[in-house]
């Protein structure tokens, strides 16, 4: 009887050991941390509708990548009721309240030449010579997609429109910084070089390419 009891204890201990090994090594059961972890919100796979198809001829010659920070602060005076209530916003004890949002945006600005703007009189050919006048370079794209935007700090309630305004501010800052780096001038000279090489490549011996004002 005593031996039977001994075997039962050993058997139960072995089962517990095996279960623990399975739980820890094979991760068959979720950890306590995962049980209390908030599940990510996943969007439904909805169809994509094509609204417009536009024919373009944009020669993109310069791409800049940048990271910018934009923020917005709103401060309003507390009314009588709000002055009496406890304030946890960081403005406690002061006669005003505020909210703040800070956004980090990463994105790219593309500059180049819109080849659709070349007019027939901008191309002159004579024998093995060619003259081409290109339109001035312009900013063709400024991309700051949702995956590239990080809401670094968000205090208080911000409407979607107010958040959009901050993101637009970040994008405009990115464009301004790209312009400060003379992207348009660089795009102009790059477009000239590329077209010159292309025209030499297709058989012209004397090539002159210039960019318009």
């Amino acid at each position: 009887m005593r031996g039977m009891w001994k075997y039962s204890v050993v058997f139960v201990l072995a089962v517990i050991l095996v279960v623990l090994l399975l739980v820890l090594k094979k991760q068959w059961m979720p950890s306590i941390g995962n049980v209390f972890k908030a599940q990510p919100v996943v969007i439904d796979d909805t169809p994509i509708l094509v609204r417009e198809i536009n024919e373009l001829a944009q020669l993109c010659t310069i791409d800049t990548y940048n990271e910018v920070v934009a923020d917005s602060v709103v401060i309003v005076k507390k009314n009588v009721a709000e002055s009496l209530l406890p304030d946890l916003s960081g403005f406690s004890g002061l006669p005003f309240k505020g909210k703040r949002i800070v956004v980090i945006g990463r994105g790219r600005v593309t500059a180049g030449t819109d080849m659709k703007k070349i007019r027939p009189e901008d191309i002159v050919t004579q024998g093995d010579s060619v003259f081409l006048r290109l339109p001035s370079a312009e900013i063709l794209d400024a991309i700051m997609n949702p995956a590239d935007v990080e809401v670094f700090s968000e205090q208080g309630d911000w409407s979607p429109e107010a958040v959009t305004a901050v993101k637009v501010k970040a994008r405009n800052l990115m464009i301004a910084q790209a312009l400060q780096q003379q992207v348009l001038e660089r795009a102009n000279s790059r477009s000239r070089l590329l077209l010159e090489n292309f025209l030499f490549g297709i058989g012209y011996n004397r090539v002159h390419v210039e960019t318009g004002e």
Partner: protein
Amino acid sequence: MFRFVTFISALLTMPACNTTGKQEGAEVLALKEMNELVTVEYVVNKIIKANDNTTWYKAGDRKILMTCAATLKAGIDFSGITPEHISVNGKNITLMLPRASLFSINIRPEDIKVAYEEVGVFRSGFTAAERETLAAQAEVQIYQSADSLGILRVAETNASLFVSNFLKKMGYSQITIRFDEGRPAHKLD
């Protein structure tokens, strides 16, 4: 009086808190020279639909419905063209172009709009960061569906038309445009 002085001093120190990132004249992180001819732009719409009801210990649901518009651009990367891809014989020219690629997906912040939001009594509304995460998921779905929209085929047709017209203006009468079947189109970063 003390409150008034506190209020004024706080207002005076506030501009110091309103930092707007890098200073004027700050350099961009990277600058790349490229040679891409964008020949087509698709503007697409997508509904972003999410239901936050899967976390067992959170009482009540949250639902959100957003709309977004994205602009997809595709075209030809000219950097791969070498003299071997061009063949000229008098007024006849044959040009071998690389296959079309998807160059960019642009979802402008102002094109993302919240159409409907339903928040349970015990829940708080979606924060800006949460809305951004949902829009980022939509961006991935649009990228994954780009091929099925036929944008690359249209980009190649438009590229062929544009290059033909350009060469015609340059004086060539017989123009043949081919696409390099052997070279795979490059993928969007």
